[in-house]
Structures are given as C-alpha cells and as structure tokens.
C-alpha cells in the first residue's frame, strides 16, 4: 500500500490525502499519512512499570490494547471534581501538574473508576517542600534490625529516615501513569484540551473531544513467586518460552589497593578494610533515576578517595589491604551487598567474612550542614566489648584525619541505629566494626530521596552561564570542592586504618577529578574524558541523554561500566603492551593476569586530528555478579534476600487524538447497513427482471442476462 500511503491514490483521492497541512512525501514511508492525520505520538515519555517482590506487585498496569480517555488538565485540586464527579464523558485521562503529584491526590484517583490513566508533567520549579515517592523507612526488614536484633530500632521506631517519603512508588495502580518529560509535548496536549475539551460557561463540552491513549501492558502479575514460577514453566516446557519477568540484576564493582588473586583465596590472616557505596537509585518512573544526592555524589567521593589513596608512596607496604566496593541494586533491598555477603559465606569470593577488619560506608554526603559529617554506628553490636574497642579505634582515627580539613566529623552516639546502608547486610552475618558516614544526623537532608527531582540542582551544583560542554567538564564547582574534602578525609583515615604510619599530607583528593566525574555522571556522559577511558567497542554506551542510574535487568548498565572504567583509570597504571598483548594477557608470562585486569582503552583525541591514541591500562578492578541469592537458591518467596523482579512488556507508547461522538458512529453504521440492504435488494430485482429492462435486438451471439 506504499503508493496509496503517500497521498497518491489515483483516480480520485489524490486531493483527499493532500491536505494543505500535510507533510509531503519525503518522510512518507514512516507511518501512513492517514494515521498521521489522526494521531499525534508522544515521544518523550517515561512509563511507570510493574515491579514485583515476594508478596506484592507495585507500579502500574494498562489494558493490553491500551487505555483511552478524554483528556482533562488538572492544575489545582478543584479541577479534580470534574474528573471524579461532574464530568459527563468518563473515563478521563488526567494531565496532572507535577505539584499535585502527591499521595493524597493519587489515592483519590486510585479509588475511582472514572480515571483511565494519568500523565504527569514535570513540576517547574521543583516542589520546595520536598518530594519523595520512596518509603519512609527504606529497605525495612532487609537490614540488620529485626525483632531478634535491636527491636527498638526495627521498622524505624526510633528514627524515621525519610519523613518526606509518601510511599507512592510502592503502591499498585491499575491504570497507566506516564511522565511527560518534554515541556513542548505537554503544551501540545494542553492546547488540544483548550481547543476541544474546556467546559465553557458551565455547558457540556461537545464532541469531538481530545483524548489520549497510553499503552503499558505488563505481563507479570501478583508477585515474584507467581511470575518466576510461570517463567520457569515456560522455559522448561515450551519451545518458544514466554518469560514474564526478570530479576533485577547487575554487577558490583570492586578493586583492592594491593592486588589479590581474584580467582584464589586470600590468606585468613590477611585483613581487609572494606569501603562501600551504592551506585544505583530509583524513582516512580522507569529508568528515571538521576540519584544525585542518593547515589552519585557518594560514589564519586569514593572514587576520589580511591585515587587519593593510590598516591601514597608505601601502598604496597601497608599492613592491611583496602577493598573499594561499589554495590549495585542497593535500592531494592540490598541486592548487591546481600549477594557479596552470600558469596563470602559460601567461599565463592576471594575474601571471607573473617578477613574483614572494618567497614567504612559513604552514604549521602553532599548536603552537609555547617560542614558536619556524621558517623553512624550500630549500637547493638557495640555492646560487645571487643567490637566496641575496635569501633572506638575506628571513630578516633576518622576524627583525627579530619584535623585541618574543612570537615567536622561528629559521632551520632548510641541512641541512633544505622541508617539504611549496605553495612547492615554485613552486620547480619558477622559483627564487624564499621561506620556509615552521612550528612544527616536523624532524618535525611535529602528531601528528594529516590525521586526524579534528585538532580544536580539538589546538590547545589551550578555552572556559570554560557559555558560550552568542554568548559563545563573542566569547571570546578563548589560541590566538587566540598566532596573532594570529604574524600581527602576518608582517604587519610583509611591510610591510618590500614596501618600506614607516614605523613598523610600527600593524600589529597583532586577537586578537578571530582568535578569531571560529577559532570559525567550527572549531566552528560558523552564527554571527552569518558570517551578517552572506555574500550573502543563499547563507546556506544555514552549517550547524550541525562544519565540515569537504575539497576535494570539487562546488564551491566552504563553506570556500572563507567564506574569500572573510571576506577581503572584513577587507580590503575598504564602499561606498555600492544593491543594483542593487552587483550590476551595470558600469553605474556609476566602479566600476572590473576591479580590484574587489563583493559585496552580508546585514549584521547589528538588535538588536531580525528584519531585516538589507545593504550593498555592495568588495574585491580573486577566485576562480580549482583543477583540476589534468592534467585540462586530459587527461593522466590524469600524474606531474607531481595526478591525484586521487573515485569516484561511488549510495547510502551502514548498518543493523542480526537474521538467522535457515539451518535456519529452509529449514524455511519446505520447508513452503511441501509445502503447495503438497499443495494442488495435493488440488484436482486434488477437481475431478476433483467429481460424486461434490457431488451436487446435479437443477436445471435447474445445471451439473455
């Protein structure tokens, strides 16, 4: 039908399809022109998808052929009455202003059948009172506090960590909810609404009305137990298996200060200090997770501390080793850290729990009040004298390292439990002395925890106007300077903890590096520095969109790759190997490929040419799988390990169009039936009486009709 699609319908309707407003043939072959007359697709949207855990399903669902509804724009609460009670053309598709996207409004909409879907426009400006669709008590039940361990601290009895949290992300909606990221598309929808749907002077708006259709049908239902059971049945018995859900999985990135044999086992007497941060975040909508304060600033600080430590001269002489660990999936009940603990217990990891001397974790560190950084510890394990002694030692070393820096470290004390952190999973297995560093004492300073508003503005990262992308990459923001100070303090403390005795003034985090990392992970991944440190074959992962840090189901995600390469660049060394030697290190006898990882990276562009100078980087960076042990053990209803899965879907899209009144449609049908019946009758009678109607002069060749 390519010919007719392009407005070339010969015989009569060339004029039909060539309407003055029509776009002419150059792009005729994407979607036929009649479809373009009817629908306006909405391209820059993010859906809300269904996630499942052992017992519940959360998120949104649409019908299999999409949900349609008449558009109504809700900008203040009074507009909701039209949708809920007054409007004469239910169901309605609501275009909600971002400022009204709160629990009260959403629960009202959830309870009615007059709503067929929701499109949320990003609020500008960001709601100043805070917005967090996460839980008030994140990862409750999967940390260390339970009725058997510190029951007075369990379920946020003592401290509510995220008081702004509405828990919206964890509700189950039976209609689709989309985020409209582009203000221009929002304006198009509002214009269509103004032209057709606005009730004028109390009268009912007339057909045709502007409507929207959202497609986001999810295949998985009920819980992880159900969907994994169905998927495994399909995979076992079907030739063409229809898997309905996938576990959330990715890779943890880890690296050691002194190289260790990654496929062997570390000597039990060798002690290791673990430094940890999380690298993922989440929001109400799929793959929207800027995570500036909740994840990015912490792991950027961690990376800077790792780089600073490698500058110490006697790194290989230190008594204890240091392992820099970046956990993925921590937002979803500690996927990464629970898996690492499990691997350590089952001897599948080079280290064991016995090797761990202490644990330092960096949680949200960017929004410090008066430069204070708080040190949280676990009061329950500190009741043990030996643990208390070691924790005390740890706290003292940390405090001493902050002398002279613009960072004040203060202890939180025995009255507070640990905030949600990966350290809690390690504590579940062994009473390790550890500390969690944050910028908040009780509740989070971050009022946009796990939301789409946790952006660079939230961490006060500002660039002057008119800078080009390369200038922005090199510009050192105040946020970068402040995080560099934290990194310096942490690095010096780690040096002392590891037994280093020398002067620590050489251990300094570089604010320039911190700034470049912040730019790359928060604003634009496709910058010259990132391009120069990745492998040539995966440079395609550097997209031009705003970086998002959702753990996802296909892996590793861009964030994991980039953390790996940045860590390799900052802590590794350039070695003089050719490309073949670098890609096949086992052929070189002195490569010690058990201890090191070799990567052939692109290198930077020559200033006046278009070619790059690649080189080989040797580092101790490794990836280990971060899949919840519940899926390894096939205990899909587990309450001990994370069981989060993401549903699969076929298509996700949105479009707007006009709908005609039912009367016009029925008239069309009736006219059609009448014409059909009349023509059948007329033809029958004409055919039956043909000899009367057509009396031809007798002709030997003619035969009567």
């Amino acid at each position, binding site marked *: 039908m390519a010919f007719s699609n392009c407005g070339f319908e*010969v*015989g009569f309707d060339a004029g039909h399809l060539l309407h003055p407003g029509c776009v002419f043939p150059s792009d005729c072959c994407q979607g036929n022109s009649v479809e373009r007359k009817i629908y306006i697709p909405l391209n820059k949207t993010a859906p809300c998808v269904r996630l499942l855990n052992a017992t519940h399903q959360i998120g949104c669902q649409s019908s299999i052929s999409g949900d349609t509804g008449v558009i109504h724009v809700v900008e203040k609460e009074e507009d909701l009455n039209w949708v809920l009670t007054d409007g004469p053309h239910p169901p309605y598709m609501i275009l909600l202003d971002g400022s009204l996207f709160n629990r009260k409004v959403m629960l009202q909409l959830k309870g009615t059948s007059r709503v067929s879907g929701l499109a949320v426009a990003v609020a500008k400006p960001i709601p100043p009172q805070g917005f967090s669709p996460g839980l008030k008590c994140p990862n409750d039940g999967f940390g260390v506090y339970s009725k058997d361990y510190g029951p007075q601290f369990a379920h946020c009895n003592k401290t509510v960590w995220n008081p702004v949290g509405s828990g919206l992300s964890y509700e189950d909606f039976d209609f689709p909810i989309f985020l409209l990221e582009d203000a221009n598309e929002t304006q198009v929808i509002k214009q*269509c609404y103004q032209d057709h749907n606005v009730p004028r002077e109390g009268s009912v708006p007339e057909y045709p009305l502007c409507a929207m259709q959202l497609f986001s049908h999810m295949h998985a239902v009920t819980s992880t137990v159900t969907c994994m059971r169905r998927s495994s049945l399909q995979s076992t018995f079907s030739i063409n298996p229809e898997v309905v859900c996938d576990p959330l999985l990715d890779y943890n990135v880890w690296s050691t200060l002194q190289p260790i044999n990654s496929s062997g086992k570390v000597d039990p007497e060798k002690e290791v200090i673990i430094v940890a941060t999380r690298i993922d975040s989440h929001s109400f909508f799929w793959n929207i997770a800027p995570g500036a304060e909740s994840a990015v600033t912490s792991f950027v600080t961690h990376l800077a501390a790792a780089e600073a430590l490698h500058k110490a001269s006697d790194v290989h002489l230190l008594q204890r080793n240091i392992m820099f660990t970046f956990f993925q999936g921590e937002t979803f009940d500690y996927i990464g850290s629970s898996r690492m603990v499990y691997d350590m217990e089952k001897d599948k990891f080079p280290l064991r729990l016995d090797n761990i001397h202490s644990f330092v974790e960096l949680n949200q560190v960017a929004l410090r009040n008066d430069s204070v950084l708080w040190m949280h510890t676990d009061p329950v394990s500190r009741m043990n004298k030996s643990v208390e002694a070691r924790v005390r030692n740890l706290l003292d070393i940390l405090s001493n390292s902050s002398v002279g820096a613009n960072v004040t470290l203060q202890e939180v004390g025995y009255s507070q439990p640990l905030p949600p952190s990966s350290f809690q999973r390690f504590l579940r297995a062994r009473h390790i002395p550890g500390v969690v560093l944050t910028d908040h004492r009780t509740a989070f300073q971050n009022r946009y925890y796990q939301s789409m508003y946790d952006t660079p503005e939230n961490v006060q990262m500002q660039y002057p106007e008119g800078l080009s992308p390369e200038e922005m990459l090199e510009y050192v923001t105040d946020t970068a300077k402040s995080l560099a100070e934290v990194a310096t303090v942490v690095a010096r403390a780690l040096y002392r903890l590891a037994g280093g005795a020398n002067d620590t003034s050489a251990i300094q985090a570089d604010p320039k590096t911190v700034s470049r990392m912040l730019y790359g992970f928060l604003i634009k991944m496709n910058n010259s520095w990132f391009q120069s440190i990745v492998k040539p074959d995966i440079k395609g992962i550097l997209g031009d969109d705003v970086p998002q840090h959702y753990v996802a189901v296909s892996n590793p995600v861009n964030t994991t790759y980039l953390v790996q390469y940045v860590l390799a660049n900052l802590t590794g060394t350039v070695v003089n190997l050719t490309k073949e030697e670098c890609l096949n290190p086992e052929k070189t006898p002195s490569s010690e490929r058990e201890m090191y990882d070799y990567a052939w990276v692109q290198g930077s562009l020559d200033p006046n040419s278009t070619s790059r100078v690649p080189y080989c980087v040797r580092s101790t960076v490794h990836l280990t799988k971060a899949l919840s042990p519940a899926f390894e053990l096939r205990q899909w209803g587990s309450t001990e390990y994370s069981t989060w899965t993401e549903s699969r879907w076929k298509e996700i899209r949105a479009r707007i169009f006009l709908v005609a009144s039912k009367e016009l449609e029925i008239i069309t049908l009736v006219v059609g039936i009448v014409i059909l019946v009349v023509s059948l009758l007329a033809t029958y009678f004409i055919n039956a009486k043909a000899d*009367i109607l057509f009396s*031809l002069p007798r002709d030997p060749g003619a035969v009567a009709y």
Partner: protein
Amino acid sequence: MTLAVFFGCTFIAFGPALGLFLFTIARDPLRIIILIAGAFFWLVSLLLSSLIWFIAVKASDPRDEALQKGLLIFGVMFSVLLQEAFRFLYYKLLRKAIEGLVALSEDGCSPISIQQMAYVAGVGFGLMSGAFSMINLLADSLGPGTVGIHGDSQLYFLTSAFMTMVLIFLHTFWGILFFHGCEHRRWWEIAAVVVMHLAVSGSTFWNPLYVGSLVPSYLLMAAAATWAYLLSGGSAQNLRRFLLCLRSGASPQPGS
C-alpha cells in the same frame, strides 16, 4: 466503538459492489475470471503510473510545495490516461478471448457477450480501485481516534466511503461505454469516458471542500448510468414496465 465506523464505511463503499458481485458475477466462473483479470489490469496500470510519479518525486526537491503539488496533479492525470490505456488493452485481450471461446464452444456461440464482458471488466476495475482507495482508511478507522486533530474535517471517513462507492459505479459504467465505443468504432464515446474520468479525478483536488468533489461525481455517475443503460438496450419504456411489474409483483416474463 469505532468498529461501527469501520463496518459503516465498508458497507457504504463496498455494499453496492457486493450486491453486483453476488447476484450477477458470482454464479458464472467465466465472469469471475474476467473480473479478476480486470482487477489485475487496473493494478498494473497503477503500478506503472506510480512508478513514474515516484521517480519524479525523488528526483525533485521535497521542500518545494508548489512543485510537489504540480507533480501530484501531473501524476493523477497521467495515471488516468494510463488506466484508460489499460482498459483499451484489456478490451483487445477480451476480443481475442471471445474468438477463442467461440472456437471452443459446441454451438459456435460464445458463452458470454462482449457487453457482459464490458460490464464485468468495469466492475473489476472499480473493485480494485476502491480497494486501493479505501482499505488503509478502513484499517485506521478501527483505532479509537477520528480525523481532526490537525484541523481536518471529521467527516473524512464518511466522504471517502461515498467517493469510493461512486467511483466503483463509475468504473462499471465507463467499462460499458468504453467497450461499446471500441466495438462500434465510436471514438467520441472513448473520448467522453476519458474526459469524465479526468473530471472526476480533478474534482477531488477540491477536497476537503467535499461539495466540490462529491456532487459533481454523483452527477456524472447519474449521466454515465443513463448513457450505459441506453446503450445496453434499455429505454424509458422498459423502465416503466419494470417498475409496474415490480409493483404488481407478477412473475418475470420470458424474454421476447
């Protein structure tokens, strides 16, 4: 419930053609073959004309709106001429076929006359033309939306269906007229068919002013219908007898 629009438009556009097919063509396999071959001839003519148009469009600047419109008008006119040329070719083919049928028959008479072939060929051309015009619209009418968000008329589907119906009828009558003209060497009848076809196609450039395209097309259809009826042996007298016969409900008389 735009299933209603789908069925409504299908019945409007193809209802009469369905009647024609069921009662006059479906029983006779020879007529079915002629119908399908006629449809195929129309298809080939469309293929060739759209190839020319496609090349012309690709070779030209897509941003020049006036040029593109001019190319479209040229394309439409060229296609009309090509369709009529293929009608002529089909006439030639059917003439040859009659000779073959006469040779094969037992009593030296062809089982089908050239007038019947003309009628069936016209229906074939009309059906294929209608299909190409209407099918993609029908497919889009199944969705929940209707035309209009960019300002087009809401009656788009309805008027397209009516236009398709009139065009199927027109092709039928043009078939009868054209073959009659070729048979009796009356070139002015052939010229009239071509002019009528050009007029109907040209009138569609008036769209979305649907009065400008539908009204002339229906008037032309009435004129062509009368002319074809008269050429096929009809007369006002026959018509009166037919209507009286219907009213009295008498059984059909054998042909005289």
